[in-house]
């Protein structure tokens, strides 16, 4: 197992309303099998031993499925590899002697809480505005009650693969959340269970997105390029169509 000696330039910020700064850390002897987050764990362990305060960053599952980890690495959300989350990025993708810049996901709607941790609850509020279905609970449906064509199921699934990390927003020059919102809306709008609330869902989610301060989409597709789950920007066009339809319906009723 090889080890790497790295220099880290990390964004430090003590709290939401404090000024931030870049600090330099020496990260020597990092095993190349370590993930990016494990590398930060090692660095933090050393910082604490020397009496400092560790670099704060979000993480949870560490296997690319929860959407908690973030980080803008060398200017790219989730780093340079593509189609991975930061927790899936491994140090073997870097070279000995590299200098790595680590910053938070930056967007007006994602205020920094501390260091590399940002507040992404705006996404939760968008989901609360329509990203759900209402079903009767308490008794089981008959199996195969709702046949769904394989193509629809696959399309819905590819939208549902969104883990809500927010990289799309961080990559966009407008800080637009359209890829996230369109994936979450399409996931339900493509299924029969999503039909009854479709109009309400689309209007509610889009309005909440605007209220949270996310920017408009100007078709740059940086979102698609950094998405760890490779969500297609085609869902954005679908949301635009669904929105037009929903707005028309709303005016007519």
């Amino acid at each position, binding site marked *: 197992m090889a080890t790497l000696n790295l220099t880290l330039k990390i964004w430090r910020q003590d*709290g939401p309303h404090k000024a931030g700064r870049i600090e330099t850390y020496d990260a020597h002897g990092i095993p190349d099998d370590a993930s990016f987050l494990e590398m930060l764990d090692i660095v933090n*362990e050393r910082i*604490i031993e020397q009496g400092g305060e560790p670099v704060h960053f979000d993480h949870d599952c560490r296997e690319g499925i929860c959407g908690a980890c973030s980080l803008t690495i060398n200017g790219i959300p989730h780093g340079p590899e593509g189609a991975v989350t930061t927790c*899936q990025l491994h140090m073997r993708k870097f070279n000995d002697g590299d200098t790595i810049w680590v910053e938070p996901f930056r967007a007006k709607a994602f205020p920094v809480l501390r260091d590399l941790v940002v507040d992404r609850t705006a996404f939760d509020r968008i989901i609360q505005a329509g990203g759900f279905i209402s079903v009767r609970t*308490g008794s089981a449906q008959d199996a195969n009650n709702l046949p769904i064509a394989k193509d629809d199921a696959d399309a819905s699934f590819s939208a549902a693969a969104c883990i809500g990390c927010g990289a799309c927003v961080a990559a966009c020059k407008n800080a637009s959340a359209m890829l996230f919102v369109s994936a979450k809306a399409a996931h339900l709008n493509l299924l029969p269970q999503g039909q009854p609330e479709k109009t309400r869902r689309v209007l509610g989610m889009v309005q909440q997105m605007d209220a949270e301060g996310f920017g408009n989409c100007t078709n740059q597709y940086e979102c698609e390029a950094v998405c760890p789950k490779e969500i297609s920007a085609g869902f954005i066009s679908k949301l635009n169509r669904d929105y037009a339809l929903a707005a028309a319906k709303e005016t007519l009723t």
Partner: protein
Amino acid sequence: MSESLRNDGRVWAPKSKETAAKLRRGELKPADIAEEDRDYYLERKYPSFGNLAPRDISSRSAKEACDEGRGVASTGLGVYLDFRDSIKRLGESTIRARYGNLFQMYEKISGANPYQTPMMIYPAVHYTMGGLWVDYNLMSNLPGLHVLGEANFSDHGANRLGASALMQGLADGYFVIPATLPVYLSTVSPGSITTSHPEFAAAKANAEGRLKTLFNIQGKRTVDSFHRQLGLLVWDKCGMARNEKGLQEALREIPAIRAEFWENVRVPGNGENLNMELEKAGRVADFLEFGELMCQDALNREESCGGHFREEHQYTDADPEVASGYISAGEAKRHDDKFSHVSAWEYNGEGKPATLHSESLEFTDVKPSVRSYK
């Protein structure tokens, strides 16, 4: 990695220790190993279940192969999960459609392409068996506090099977709680509750005192170092196989680690801003108590059952079930006459022994029997 991979992957280890050593040093590649030098041990030991043998059994078998010195990977803790044959049979695109996301995950972690070379796997701690005690309506012993999903102890028994977390989330969320919670709510009327209650003041003072204590210790060791020490100890002594001696040792060592934690941990910061080290310290403090209880419970349960394998309680050649060929020596042996119960432990405060409440398991329509996976 997800257990679903065993649907199409075949688990094997090399038959000989010498081959394993060469694989570990990278002098041989798994593809170099001839068919007759591979031990598809699950298929060999459990021909009717093969690679789909339950989690506890498969995990123990992997451990056994590695304990024998037949483990692969540089650490010696690994066996192969091989898709060569199913790719040949079904084609790579079918395997990709079934497991593409998991294969990608593996490739990222290990840097190796599992379509071309077998995965290396080893059992790891994932879920624990058990959880918070609840009644039939999913209410805990605190009136009004209902516990749903994996957080409660209720459904999974002594072993967790694949996706049992989802099963429990769905069962509790869809079917149980919609029927039981409204009944509870109909029995209470919201009174006037203020924070002036003495219990509230005591709880608040307690929580604040604990935080202050953690900050004030200003010791030399990081929270992670304690977490790692405890984790390794519990993994060794209360892991896939346990015995009385090891559990007794763990029960002596955990209180010592806990004592050192409360004297020598370092929690940086002051509690004025977001502090993840503090959060972690609170959890590790809980683990230090809970780990002890787990060992206590494992020591108390003098049988093997599901994920709880007490080395003293296994089938031997002296047992009629082994003589008849129904089951092999070395399999887990339950003692239903003494342990057909759930052990619910009542917390009595830090460092005080917990009180055991056993809830007997009554079977009316089916009778528990010894299951053979052979």
